[in-house]
């Protein structure tokens, strides 16, 4: 998350001419600024940190003392919560299900979206503007508005409770936003390239596959991360279409355990850490793409 512009403000600390005394005065004056920022940072980091620390403690420790006590000896770290959570029937397979839902769903919707976006960016046809305005509108439609009929559709197709149903549902729900974003990106590519390709006799399939797709890779990369994590973190779609199925993803299984365990739920810390480790790793290592995906998606509801 690097600053695009140097953050140097006028009267920045360390200006050579400033005397030591006024420098200290300046620093003192800025002290409240630093304190406020640090308070916010602590409030935003400590909850996650506390959970991660707790996940390495035993359940009895968690129930008898707060996570901060472990900072002092005896530490008593243990992997017991992880062993316990992975030993629960269905937890291990739900992690596999999450992967099996997320990867194909991402691939399916992005390939279809890229093709549709190309049509909206570089082809002329009657009704195009209307179609696209509908797509802009669909981006914010709450999926609650669609759940029941889609559920019935899957029932007719005998897809209820299958992973394939969730691939299709996610793809349908994700498409409007992806078409919108990719169309804007594709539409911003230089017209001359497409025109000269057309002069050379390249058909749309060549222009799409050889020019449009390679030039859109940066946008597709950011979008892939965004979409992938959206599906990995999804609860509502999976809960609706896979509620009691054998293929419930990790989020649904964790949620089920939270409500069913009542007391002794503390070892779920390990499950939560496992669930969020993938998004956090992606964020840390692919920060630039991740933030770009988020900012470009700012109009998505």
């Amino acid at each position, binding site marked *: *998350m690097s*600053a695009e512009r140097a*953050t140097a403000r006028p009267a920045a600390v360390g200006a050579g001419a400033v005397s030591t005394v006024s420098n200290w005065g300046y620093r003192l004056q800025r002290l409240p*600024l*630093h304190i*406020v*920022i640090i308070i916010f940072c602590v409030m*935003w*980091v400590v*909850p*996650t940190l506390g959970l991660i620390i707790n996940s390495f403690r035993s359940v009895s420790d968690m*129930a008898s*003392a*707060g996570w901060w006590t472990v900072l002092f000896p005896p530490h008593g770290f243990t992997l017991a919560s992880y062993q316990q959570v992975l030993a629960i029937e269905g937890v291990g397979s739900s992690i596999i299900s999450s992967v099996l839902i997320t*990867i*194909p769903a991402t691939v*399916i919707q992005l390939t279809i979206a890229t*093709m549709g976006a190309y*049509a909206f960016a570089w*082809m002329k*046809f009657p009704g195009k503007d209307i179609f696209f*305005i509908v797509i*802009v*509108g*669909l981006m*914010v*439609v*709450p999926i*609650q508005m669609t*759940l*029941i*009929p889609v559920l019935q559709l899957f029932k007719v197709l005998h897809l209820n409770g299958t992973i394939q149903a969730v691939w*299709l*549902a996610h*793809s349908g*729900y994700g*498409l409007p936003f992806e*078409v919108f974003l990719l169309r804007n990106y594709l539409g911003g590519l230089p017209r001359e390239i497409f025109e000269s390709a057309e002069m050379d006799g390249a*058909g*749309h*399939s060549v222009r799409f596959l050889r020019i449009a797709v390679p030039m859109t890779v940066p946008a597709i990369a950011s979008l892939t991360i965004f979409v992938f994590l959206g599906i*990995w*973190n999804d*609860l*509502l779609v999976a809960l*609706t279409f896979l*509620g009691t199925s*054998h293929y419930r993803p990790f989020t649904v299984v964790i*949620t089920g355990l*939270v409500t069913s365990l009542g007391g002794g739920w503390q070892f*779920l810390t390990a499950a*939560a850490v496992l669930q969020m480790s993938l*998004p*956090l790793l992606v*964020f840390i290592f692919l920060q630039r793409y*991740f*933030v770009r995906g988020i*900012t470009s998606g*700012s109009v998505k*509801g």
Partner: protein
Amino acid sequence: MDQDTLNQIITAAIAVVAVPAALLGYIYGGEWVIEHLPDGVQKWIRPYFWALPAVGFATVFMVYPMLRTIVFSFRNSADTEWMNGLSCNGQPCSIFQNYIYFFTFPDTLTSLRNSVLWLIFYTLFAVGLGLIIAILVDRVHYESLAKIAIFLPVPISAVAASIIWKFMFDYQPTGTTQTGTLNAVIGLVGHDPVAWLVNSTTNNAALIFVGIWTATGFCMVIISASLKSISSEVLEAARMDGANEFQIVRLIVTPLLWPTITVVGTTMIINALKTFDIVYVLTNGAYNTDVIATQMFRQLADAKYGRAAAVGVVLFVAIVPLMLVNIRRFQQQEEQR
């Protein structure tokens, strides 16, 4: 690994390869057919052929279900008859019975009230804090580190965030050791522990705060990107004229950021209305914390499709004005292209 899982892995692997391959086949095959058509037909049919997969998906999974949901909302639970005549347990009732239920039943009214609370406080605080933090960190040299800290909850799923906060809100009776961070902190100043998620004066605020915690980083990043595009000369000139930092933020920075703030605000309002995960995981609507989306899901799970559809329509109608704002903004952007 059992046979079933293995089958699923193979199916998934096939799908990952086959779907793009099928689309390639669609493109090449379709283009081949189109090229053999008369010129006039070619020109006419080609764009629709290219737009078809995306538009088709959107139609099947969004447009058609939306229309169907509207129809459902006027029918009974089992979708066997219209809500009129004698379909309400043999009692005469109105075609709007599912809506009347939503706007008169105490439980659903509570969920409506809570969604309004979410709408106001979640939006206000997420955008407000995002703006404040973006402006503050712009003035320190450890900006990127501070932004990472605030952004950290954004990639985390609402399910994991809920478990994180289940610990923060953990409550033990007065006199025993507090294991929840918040109760330990207020214990330091001698306050009795609070059952944050059960106590009806704190639980909605607590849930909304979890939402704010997950969304502030998002608002901050977008507002910050826009803040960086404000020319430093403008700010410089204001400082020369003797404006202090507060005046600069209030009179120059905030107005210049206003378009971005409205975009982020719209997104947050929509998120607030659609809030589901946090409430579902932390309380599942117990102790008067229900929101529209959890209410709808409960009706759905009870197979009360008519009522669930009506809740869905109410949610949609609430979002329509924002949808129109988005469309208007899109049209303005198009005019500038």
